[in-house]
């Protein structure tokens, strides 16, 4: 046929291009139906509270995570606080500056490595919120005389590592060389100053001396103070300008606190926080079948086979209880919940990632553990609950069956949170918000 002998591909392609451009100009919008007849069956949303015995077991409290030194920079001092607690802060001072840039007698600035230490002062900074005192308190500063280890030191032991356990010759970090006293008035600021002479300053100048250290004691009974940090300010005379006194700073290179008595694990409760920290672990099994809950069975056929996709919200609900007075929080506690990856290895099991979206954890005010106990705290773990019911996560990995309740930062404070445990009137329970709908069918 003649037409096949005359290629017209160019014309065709041009027309096709025009065609494609023309049809591409129309925006695609999905029509929104106006009648609910076009919707499938409506789901039911219902809240269900599952008692402890139906979803959890084997609650245990473990202590000893981290060291008071891990808080970093500061410590705690207390004297017969709440009638029981004594606490002292131990610090190691870093190397003193050996060179300073000073103006000589001609007014020129140059480094001077021949400095004469005349004295100084230890400046301590306090946490005005966590500290319990409203009135001025008096503290004593002493120099340790026995070798001690900042990481493992406790009220009874100066060193407490494997194959090396050495008790203090006098429990509580002593004996010490008494130096000076100072007063801190929280109304006047957050700082207390211990004035020191040159001989006292010289006690900490040798950084290789493992017995060198600062001990701060509280002399006034009935209070608990939190030390945020401390620095040693040194007064020095440079050789290049002997008429001038310059001030140098030596920081602390280690800081911890020791206290007595050490709290015992609660026999029937949940404990989170402290220093070293406490963790509470519990085994979780999301019930596959829900039955016998009147308010639930009134709207859903019982027994109901629970599907993971029906869990819209899941939370462990804890009821706060009053913490032992000596360890009651004075600032907010931040709770975290993480899966325990190897239950048999507890207390050394690694933990999974946090189940709480907020990186600061679940924040609870201090009154819940002191003046106003009995507050219900929800610790949400919806995704974990779904995976636990399915048995695997989205990657196909087996979902751990144990959760750990802990502080977001370990350790964070000497104080800890306490909650009612199983078997009590306000035992933990599982709160579920379920969305249960019929299958989506064709019209």
């Amino acid at each position: 046929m003649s037409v096949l002998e005359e290629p017209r591909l160019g014309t065709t392609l041009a027309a096709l291009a025009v065609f494609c451009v023309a049809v591409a100009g129309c925006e695609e919008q999905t029509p929104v139906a106006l009648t609910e007849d076009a919707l499938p069956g409506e789901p039911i949303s219902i809240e269900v509270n599952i008692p402890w015995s139906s979803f959890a077991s084997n609650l245990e409290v473990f202590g000893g995570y981290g060291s008071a030194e891990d808080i970093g920079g500061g410590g705690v001092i207390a004297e017969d606080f709440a009638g029981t607690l004594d606490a002292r802060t131990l610090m190691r001072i870093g190397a003193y500056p050996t060179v300073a840039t000073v103006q000589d007698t001609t007014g020129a600035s140059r480094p001077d490595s021949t400095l004469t230490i005349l004295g100084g002062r230890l400046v301590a900074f306090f946490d005005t919120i966590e500290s319990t005192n409203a009135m001025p308190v008096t503290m004593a500063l002493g120099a340790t005389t026995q070798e001690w280890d900042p990481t493992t030191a406790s009220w009874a032991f100066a060193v407490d590592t494997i194959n090396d356990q050495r008790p203090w010759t006098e429990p509580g970090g002593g004996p010490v060389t008494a130096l000076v006293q100072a007063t801190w008035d929280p109304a006047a600021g957050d700082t207390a100053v211990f004035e020191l002479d040159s001989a006292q300053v010289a006690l900490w100048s040798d950084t290789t001396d493992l017995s060198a250290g600062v001990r701060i004691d509280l002399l006034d009974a009935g209070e608990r103070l939190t030390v945020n940090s401390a620095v040693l300010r040194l007064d020095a005379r440079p050789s290049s300008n002997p008429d001038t006194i310059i001030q140098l700073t030596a920081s602390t290179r280690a800081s911890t606190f020791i206290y007595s008595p050490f709290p015992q694990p609660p026999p029937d409760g949940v404990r989170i926080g402290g220093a070293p920290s406490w963790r509470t672990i519990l085994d979780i099994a999301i019930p596959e079948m829900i039955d016998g809950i009147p308010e639930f069975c009134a709207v859903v056929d019982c027994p109901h086979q629970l599907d993971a996709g029906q869990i819209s919200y899941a939370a462990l609900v804890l009821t706060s209880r009053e913490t032992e007075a000596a360890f009651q929080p004075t600032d907010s506690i931040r709770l975290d919940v993480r899966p325990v990856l190897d239950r048999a290895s507890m207390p050394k099991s690694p933990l999974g990632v946090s189940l709480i979206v907020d990186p600061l954890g679940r924040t609870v005010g201090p009154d819940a553990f002191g003046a106003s106990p009995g507050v219900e705290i929800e610790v949400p773990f919806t995704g974990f609950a779904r995976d636990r019911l399915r048995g695997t996560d989205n990657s196909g990995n087996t979902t751990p069956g144990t959760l750990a309740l802990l502080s977001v930062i370990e350790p964070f404070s000497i104080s800890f949170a306490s909650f009612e445990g199983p078997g009590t009137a306000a035992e933990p329970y599982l709160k579920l918000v379920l969305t249960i709908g019929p299958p989506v069918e064709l019209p």
Partner: protein
Amino acid sequence: MAKLIGAAGRAVVLAALLALVPAADVGAQSLFNAAGLGLPGEALDGRARALGSMGIGLPGSSILPTDPGALARVGISTGVMAASPSWVDYNSAGNLGSFEGNRFPLLGLAYPVFGGMASVQIGSFLDQGYEVTRIGEVSIGGSPVRTTDDFRQDGSVSNLNLGFARTIGSRFAAGVTLGRYAGNLDRTLVRTYGEEGESGNVDTYRESGVWSWTGQSITLGGTAELPNVRVAASIQIPSDLDAEASTQTRGSDRSFALPVQYRVGATANLGPSVLVHTSAVIADWSATQDALADGAFAHDGNGFGVGVELSRARVLGKDAPLRFGFRRVGLPFAFDDEQAIERVFSGGFGLVLNETAGVVLGGIDIAIERGQRRGANLTEHFWRGTLSLLTSGF
């Protein structure tokens, strides 16, 4: 031999270009998509739309799947594709709104083989996409919490056809089209908790189902070339339309009865430049009612159309026939027991881009329709354009 290879090569290139267009990608065209099995989509080109045709009885290079006999008259290799954007305003009990969408209702290729013409066509059959939102409130922890149920249905039923037709003598032609229904339907309900824009602790609930559409059809048709008149008729006999749920779907498999569709059409040449066309379709969808859930209603899809073509018109020295038409067709599915009707006035023109020895090698047909779909509680007014590209001799 070289010519044969060259022609085949051009055919391959053209086929590849055609494949770039999402064939039969039906988009949203009507709120009636939400009724029953959706809104029937018709595999028509721009000329048929402009003439108000039901897709049968048109002379020329038409390769519509609803007119198997006409395929025999095409004579040479031909390809056609159509795009159809639409702009819709609706009014439902005082609720006003608008939307727009685009679809590709027809893609076809025909080639001469075995003394006749073979064809492959992909066309739309049912448009089903829509979404709907329901606002509610539940009590969680003793406090009222707003719920938002967003339901989205996404999918369509398309029709893949293989056809063959040949002339019988100089006046008659007969053809058969074997069709296969295909497509998917994804229905998803998502419930979210809390005020709009807020992200709370309560996660969304999601329930969805995916179904695959399957089914077959056979269409028999014939044409007769009488003096100054072409007459055509066809009958489409479908199987049930089966919906098979995916393994992840909790919903059940379903099967829907489809109607036998009868079509007749005729085009008369009233003079050297005037063609008059009329066509009708009869399709009783009432048997589908039995398989539909409560709240969905099936009616007939009967309709007719008339049109006129002024074939002597020219633009830029090329033939550009003008067309006008009207059609009225019943919508098979509605939200209540009262049938919805679509009425359309149409106009358009064709433009021959290339013609050799009286054979159109390239051309476009454009139709503009102004129509109304009216049901008991819903009225839509729409503009719809249809642009089809026809190319031959590749």
